[in-house]
């Protein structure tokens, strides 16, 4: 037999066997193990209130009301933080669309909080890679604290304490960035009243 025809049967059989092992048994086994050992995480780390699913701790939601903390701009379509269609803006660093996006956000932030003259942290005017980023920086939360306190007629110190309770530090002090979970923070705000 020439070398090609001699390999025909092994090629077809190898594809079938490897597909069965790695494409069927392996993912189903991992699914089984995950569902038994880690059901909460394996099913999306959902936030459940009563019988209602309010979201997940891992994916952000869109907020425009001044009484809520706002997350980062989101490039998903047809509405921001559409979890069914993750997307970044992919705007190049010199693109005018990028500048428009930042300016629109700056105008909205200033309109909701006209007396705030601090410089705006960059994460509040730039879209995340996923369009679903659940976090903002502690600086971005502090920037909004006064506005939220005023809108909710709450004490600024109370807001500050809530921000700190919803801030996660770097893992082992070095990996990742300090961050505030916007959705859980806003749910905690609603729970106050």
């Amino acid at each position, binding site marked *: 037999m020439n070398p090609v025809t001699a390999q025909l049967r092994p090629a077809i059989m190898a594809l079938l066997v490897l597909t069965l092992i790695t494409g069927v048994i392996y993912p189903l086994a991992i699914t089984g193990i995950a569902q038994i050992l880690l059901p909460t995480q394996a099913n999306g780390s959902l936030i459940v209130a009563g019988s209602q699913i309010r979201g997940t701790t891992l994916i952000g939601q869109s907020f425009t009301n001044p009484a809520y903390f706002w997350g980062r701009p989101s490039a998903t379509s047809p509405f921001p933080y559409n979890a069914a269609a993750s997307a970044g803006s992919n705007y190049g*660093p010199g693109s005018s669309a990028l500048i428009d996006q930042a300016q629109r956000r700056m105008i909205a932030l200033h309109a909701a909080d006209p007396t705030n003259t601090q410089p705006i942290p960059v994460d509040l005017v*730039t879209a995340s890679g996923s369009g679903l*980023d*659940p976090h903002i920086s502690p*600086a971005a939360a502090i920037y909004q604290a006064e506005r939220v306190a005023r809108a909710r007629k709450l004490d600024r110190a109370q807001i500050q304490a809530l921000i700190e309770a919803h801030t996660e530090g770097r893992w082992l002090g070095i990996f990742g960035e*300090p961050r505030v979970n916007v959705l859980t923070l806003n749910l905690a705000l609603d729970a106050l009243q």
Partner: protein
Amino acid sequence: MTLPGILSIAVYLGIVFALVKPLGWYMARVYTGKSVGLERILGPLERLYYRILGIHPTAEQSWKSYAAAMLLVNLFGIVALYLLQRFQAILPLNPGSFAAPSPAAAFNVAVSFATNTNWQNYSGETTYSYLVQMIGFTSQNFISAAVGMSVFAALARGLGRQNSPTIGHFWVDLIRSVLYILLPLSIMLAILLVSQGVVQNLNPPVPAQLVEHISDNTGAMVTTQLLPMGPAASQIAIKQLGTNGGGFFNVNSAHPFENPTPLSNILQLLAILLIPAALCYTFGVLVGDPRQGWAILAAMTTIFVVLLAVTIGAEAHGNPRLAALGIDQSATLLQPGGNMEGKELRFGINESALWAVATTAASNGSVNSMHDSYTPIGGMIPLWLMQTGEVIFGGVGSGLYGMLIFVLVTVFIAGLMVGRTPEYLGKKIEGFEMKMASIAILVPAIITLGGAALALGVHAGGFQDSGPHGLSELLYAYASMGNNNGSAFAGFDADTPWHNIVGGLVMLFARYWVALPALAIAGSLAARKQVAEGPGTLPTHTPLFIILLIGVVLIVGALTFVPALMLGPIAEYLMLRS
């Protein structure tokens, strides 16, 4: 760079290098047929596979027979994956009721996964059923990675033995790569990823009630958010370990369900470089001199660290256009600062840039940030790393066999300089080897630049941005497909018949016109006699040789691609500053 940033990179590289020797030693045992400790569990499966295939694992193959086996398993894999996509609408496990992709798109994706490119011009959560993701993509992730590792093992054998008509047995290398290396590591990584929040289920998407009701871009009220689900963790584990890179969701490892925490991020980063780095040690063991492997790893690491510093510096510096608006881009204890467009807050500048460099150094192609939104210089480094042929770590197996081809060129050039016959590991390097090496280096370069030039010539389109950034998008697309990387400047719309078909052909050329010359070299060198080391032999484990090797990689890469880079990223850099 910030202090936590420097520490995290030092710890990261420290863990990678600490694992190089144990894992490399283990993999060398896998490829020499020695016991690895998992036979009691997996041995029966291995033997059953040999029976089903009808092969004798001890009977070795010539390089031509080895190559035929490799090509056939990939050919059938491409056909099967194409058909699976085209029929997904009538097959089970399709909770989203997705229709079949177009023939051109299905061809592109089938080639992409079979060639270990895993370039994606689709968005996973809105295009493919769980069935296609599992038995199509997850299995091809394993197979394409194992194919690359097998070709590497064959080349290492060719260099290590003499007077041999054979270079090993493809079907043995393939199954042992899967059963004893990729599968155990994937199982461990998948479970760790689930513990961090990566989803793993077969449920349909879950609707969640929004806290604040909003309106979409037509003004209609939106009250729910549909959370995607699926068997993601099992696919993501092998996507990283096998340098595949194709994401379960559209935005790949930027997606919170694909990469939820700094810990899941660093685990995936480790998985990207782990096998390509450890294979260097495996190589040293297989040729009987571990120093040879360390020398190659040193050359790779030197280039990696320098380019990493450039990328982090560029991204941390931020965007001058946003600075002009008065936006605060400084890095402080309370914010990452820098160019945050397209980056996730939990990863910040440091671990986004680290990922961008690692994923393009290794031919992985997964992303945790959007490279299209990088600063000109920050985005140029990933582009250039792909253009140099994916040899700085590179794909599992494929990176090292690519780098070994650069080693042969270096030995050849050094031999010319002193007027001696070049030799490597006791083997004289002659005309045939140099012809094969030239093919393996020139073909990816020609299709990378030629593919982009052709697309411009026929106005194939796809650009999101105009000007130099648009050119960068196009260069990036063809560099990614032309070197089997798979990452993208994702604003570029490559889902057109032209880019799908030409891009598919580019991926095929890139994969096999490096793998086949590597196997030919393996066959030719295996048959040759080893000559004793003489006074004129250039030692290939010394700092001098490492510098020579770095020089050859950089000069070939620079001379070939700098003109195109001047018109893209460099021009964009100058425009942004003005």
